[in-house]
């Protein structure tokens, strides 16, 4: 048996998988990455929300949750469709959704958090919507007309998502002692996953520089203002921890994503090449 250093020398040093985004990427690559971040986030959140189908606390919520999931999956088709086009490698939106492994996914860690109780699902939705809405508003002014067009369509849907999730957070935060306690617990639990979407990395910076995407520091200001206002109305305390998890945007995920993909991709993996 060779010693460890011998084995190491035989490895191809370029074989490191899951690209690191520390260096500034080429513009086309950056656009592809940025579109994956949008499309993968809507896909994974849509998946999570769809897990509620038939299990919501009231019938109106069954309908609203299915509607939210449906909007998010529709947006995924558009973002991943454009990503596939930009990549120019002959892949489709479905290929990107169903035939990549976790390390190639670029969704925010926030959206892969498990559903938990209705409060956790709702809080995750609100924290995401409060980012998604200003983000899409910024994207509507993108220098890339394809991006602007998708953002305009998605923006109308997401404005409604945000109205709804903010309203429910306020009502349940300021409801009974139990609902307050559950909403606060959900907020505390999810808070460390909110930094990623508000903190630009090299790809975000390149996209902002090119006028394709808004500057995340501006989005962060909007987000903090809106979240602060809603939490105050909800009588919920803004967590003071400052530690933030990251990695989703670069392809380093939590353990949950693998299970989501195992379920989501099952048929495409079990019956390669079949049409559905």
């Amino acid at each position: 048996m060779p010693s460890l250093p011998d084995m190491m020398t035989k490895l191809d040093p370029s074989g490191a998988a899951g690209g690191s985004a520390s260096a500034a990427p080429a513009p086309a690559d950056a656009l592809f990455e940025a579109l994956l971040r949008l499309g993968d986030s809507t896909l994974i959140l849509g998946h999570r929300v769809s897990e509620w189908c038939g299990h919501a606390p009231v019938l109106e919520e069954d309908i609203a949750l299915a509607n939210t999931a449906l909007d998010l999956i529709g947006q995924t088709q558009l973002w991943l469709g454009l990503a596939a086009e930009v990549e120019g490698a002959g892949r489709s939106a479905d290929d990107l959704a169903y035939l990549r492994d976790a390390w190639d996914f670029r969704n925010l860690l926030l959206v892969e958090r498990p559903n938990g109780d209705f409060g956790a699902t709702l809080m995750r939705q609100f924290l995401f919507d409060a980012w998604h809405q200003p983000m899409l508003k910024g994207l509507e002014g993108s220098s890339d007309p394809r991006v602007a067009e998708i953002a305009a369509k998605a923006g109308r849907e997401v404005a409604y998502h945000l109205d709804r999730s903010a309203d429910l957070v306020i009502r349940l935060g300021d409801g009974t002692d139990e609902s307050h306690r559950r909403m606060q617990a959900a907020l505390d639990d999810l808070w460390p996953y909110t930094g990623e979407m508000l903190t630009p990395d090299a790809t975000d910076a390149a996209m902002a520089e090119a006028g394709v995407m808004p500057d995340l520091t501006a989005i962060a200001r909007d987000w903090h203002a809106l979240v602060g206002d809603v939490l105050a109305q909800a009588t919920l305390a803004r967590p003071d921890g400052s530690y933030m998890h990251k990695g989703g945007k670069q392809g380093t995920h939590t353990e949950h994503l693998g299970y989501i993909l195992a379920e989501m991709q099952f048929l495409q993996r079990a019956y390669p090449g079949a049409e559905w």
Partner: protein
Amino acid sequence: MYAQMVKSEGMKSLDEMSPEERAFQERIDRGEKIEPRDWMPEGYRKTLIRQIGQHAHSEIVGQLPEGNWITRAPTLERKAILLAKVQDEAGHGLYLYCAAETLGVSRDELLEKLHSGKMKYSSIFNYPTLTWADMGAVGWLVDGAAIMNQVPLQRTSYGPYSRAMIRICKEESFHQRQGYHIMMKLARGTEAQKRMAQDALNRFWYPSLMMFGPSDKDSVHSAQSMAWKIKMNTNDELRQKFVDQTVPQAEYLGLTVPDEGLRWNDEKGGYDFTEPDWSEFFEVIKGNGPCNKERLGARVQAWEGGAWVRDGLMAHAKKHAAAKLAAE
């Protein structure tokens, strides 16, 4: 159909009726619609509550077998279509609970009866969805059977029920088409996909026939409901129509209906077919179907697990109504 074996009150002849009852029956016979504020016999009201309630419960329990495959749908488009369909079913539940409310029963009361097992939902939703092809079979056969029953109910005598049916029927035909489209893709697909499609038809054929309820000769409550026009056709009529419509569709798919006794009967202008195993049907109705416990359990858990949400929303509304009042 989504309402099976709905018990209705005893039937009277015109001579035995009170003047009010006779006037009521004559309105129905003339094809007039009965509206919530109109006088109606207690039996009519009770029977309708049972029937509409059972139908509403079927819609919401019906989310579960299809919801089972949303996260595993094989393409983004299939996922979106399935989500839209399940969302429609929840919407159907909502229309129907609203129609029942016009008869003086609240949604919460009806749900309590579902959860405690006092009210039923359609037997079909107690069967499992085991493969993707089941999403095709459910749309094609289950929504197809529901349409068979619901299209005539658009003409039912009770106004709110009739209007709910008109809205629902539009969406159901879309459901059936998307189900058939899934089957078509599978039947024209790989060997494994064809096998999946045939297997789904094998498992869903007889349970779909059971949706129409027991044979007319064993169906004791039909006459009164038919006189009141809250049941428009007999169980056997609808079942025959369903078989006659579905067999050519199966042939077009290249699939085999799992019934060796199936043959065209020129004389009656329809197919002869084997009746489902009614002992299985009664077991499922009693709670012994493959998924009864899971389905009802899931609904009860959703309700109980969501109590804090409903309470929280109520408490918030009360607080703010009180604050508003104090400010005035």
